[in-house]
């Protein structure tokens, strides 16, 4: 085990898979000579050559379609959208072509889309989004949202080995801010298995990605203030999602907050809340609270962006509301 940043962990996972499997190659904008806008692939072109670390033209549709074609020919492509926001330009190739290919004619499409996502640094409406909700609505895609360095490595490796199109959302705000123990060598994390971030007795928070840390800070504050005990469940993957782990934590605490950075209406939290209502109604002692970004674009100016993103104080307020119910 070594302590790594979230970014180093992604990079390590990618490098290990490229060394292990010659079918894995990378394609994206500025990922070669420059090493990627966030330097996740720094040094990769020197090690693996220009044929396996491909600087593409500014063409999200062609990048994604080319990944599908290469995958159909037996390769294991990993592409980078420079910001997850730009995946909108590849929507058709993902949703129309890649996601439905296996269902229609039985040919697997093992591709990975790396999607630097999330806000918190005034990236504005086009460099800050969390578009997982669009894709969670599309059968045939898998969606991964790691929160820890260990999961960042284990899930990128699992994504590359998965026989389906996988959207790997890597949260930009975690890249260098979050450090943690990462297993050396072979390390995979199974999709659809949530991670218990911290156990608690009074209130559960179901979340994923960067919001795990917002929840953690809020939980710390209320524990120190009055001893309120908060359980935090990190889903790790949105498709497939660990329904059983969610139902278990609801059964344990009977009060639940569903927290994500994506916007509110039809966000994935709605699916979680509906499932709790359908399958754990008898366990609830209070209505499910959905805590999300509001239904607006992500604004640029710091006070506006802060108002948009769920903050620690918003989580504390939600905990207090549920405690008082």
């Amino acid at each position, binding site marked *: 085990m070594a302590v790594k940043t979230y970014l180093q962990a992604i990079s390590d996972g990618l490098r290990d898979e490229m060394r292990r499997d010659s079918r894995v190659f990378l394609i994206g904008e500025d990922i070669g000579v420059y090493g990627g806008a966030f330097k996740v692939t720094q040094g990769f072109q020197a090690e693996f050559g220009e044929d396996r670390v491909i600087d593409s033209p500014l063409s999200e*549709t062609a*990048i994604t379609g080319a990944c599908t074609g290469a995958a159909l*020919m037996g*390769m294991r492509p990993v592409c980078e959208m420079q910001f997850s926001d730009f995946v909108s330009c590849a929507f058709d190739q993902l949703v129309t072509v890649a996601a439905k290919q*296996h269902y229609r004619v039985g040919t*697997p499409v093992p591709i990975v889309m790396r999607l630097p996502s999330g806000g918190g640094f005034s990236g504005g409406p086009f460099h800050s989004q969390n578009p997982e909700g669009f894709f969670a609505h599309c059968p045939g895609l898998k969606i991964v949202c790691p929160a820890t360095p260990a999961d960042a490595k284990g899930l990128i490796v699992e994504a590359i080995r*998965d026989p389906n199109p996988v959207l790997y959302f890597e949260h930009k705000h975690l890249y260098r801010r979050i450090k943690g123990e990462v297993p050396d060598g072979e390390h995979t994390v199974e999709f659809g298995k949530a991670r218990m971030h911290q156990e608690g007795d009074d209130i559960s928070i179901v979340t994923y990605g960067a919001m795990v840390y917002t929840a953690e800070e809020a939980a710390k504050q209320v524990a120190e203030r009055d001893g309120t005990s908060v359980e935090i469940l990190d889903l790790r993957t949105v498709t497939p999602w660990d329904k059983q782990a969610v139902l278990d934590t609801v059964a344990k605490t009977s009060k639940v907050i569903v927290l994500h950075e994506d916007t509110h209406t039809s966000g994935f939290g709605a699916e979680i809340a509906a499932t709790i209502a359908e399958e754990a109604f008898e366990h609830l002692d209070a209505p499910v609270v959905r805590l999300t970004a509001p239904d607006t674009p992500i604004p640029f100016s710091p006070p506006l962006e802060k108002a948009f993103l769920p903050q620690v104080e918003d989580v504390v307020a939600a905990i207090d509301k549920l405690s008082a119910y």
Partner: protein
Amino acid sequence: MAVAREATPVESAEDVRAADLDREDLLQIYRNMLITRGIEERGHILYRQGKIPGSFYTGRGNEAAAVGVATAMQPDDVGTPIQRDMGVHVTRGTPPWRIFAQYMGRSDGLAAGKDGNVHMADIRLGLMAMVSHLPAMMPVAVGCALSFQIRKQPRVAVGWSGDGAMARGDAHEAMNLAGVRKLPVVFIVDNNQYAYSTPSKLEYGCVHLADRADAYGFDGVVVDGTDVLTVYREAHAAIEKARAGGGPTLLELVTLRMEGHAVHDDAFYVPRELMETWAKKDPIERYRRWLKEQSLLDEQREDEITVDVKKMLNEAVRKAEESPLPDPSALYEGVYADPEELDTPHHR
């Protein structure tokens, strides 16, 4: 300004020898064109009989374009044919009974009822199934070519578009990436002059669609798509150029769509004189006449082929009708692939 080369027609027997086709090859092309049209004519009858759900599309007038290109492909080459390209599926060896089963939504259709009409392909024959959002498979063909280049395999990908679909961004991004990396890919435009009811003049402002190739750094060629031997010669040259590392080519195969967009459409908007002009260039009749002029097809052989194709297609329809409709439980199968499915020859 037109910049693409306009292909001169193949005419003499000497031209054909230069194209490396012997008599049996030439007759096989004829047979494949007959099978192609025969499948679509029978499909239309089945549709009118209520045996085919949904809609029904044909490629009448495009038989030479499709068969000519597919004949020029080698066994390890791959392609993404679209809705007027039944001849590609036929030439690559898709059994006609499975195509009828596909039309009828049966379990033995290539999409086993999950998708209909020409949305089908057998990857083992090097073909990938089209989607409705044309030309979304052009970037996919580029990705196949990219994998061949990375692995240094002597294979070529063929990516299809229609004239209407060339207005969409996928076409631009695919050709640009292919041009930048000099990928072993050949782009085919089935230019049948109409995108549903919209004529070419409302779809593009250049003289020829093949002129665009110049902007991407490769050659464009305009070909009479009703002339199977010229299509074959140009496709063969482009495919072998790509295989040798010479990069992409854009071939624009000009035809007229001789029926409506689909069978519900009587194509009233196509001027009658235009239809009559192109009817005289019917690709099968034209080729049959040429074979006879060159003494490559006598009456006896023609009868043999005609009878054999008819018998084969009748048998194919019968066999397809025996194929069961899918069980409703199949709805839930196959949304995601299992890991062991990657352990197949084409995925290694």
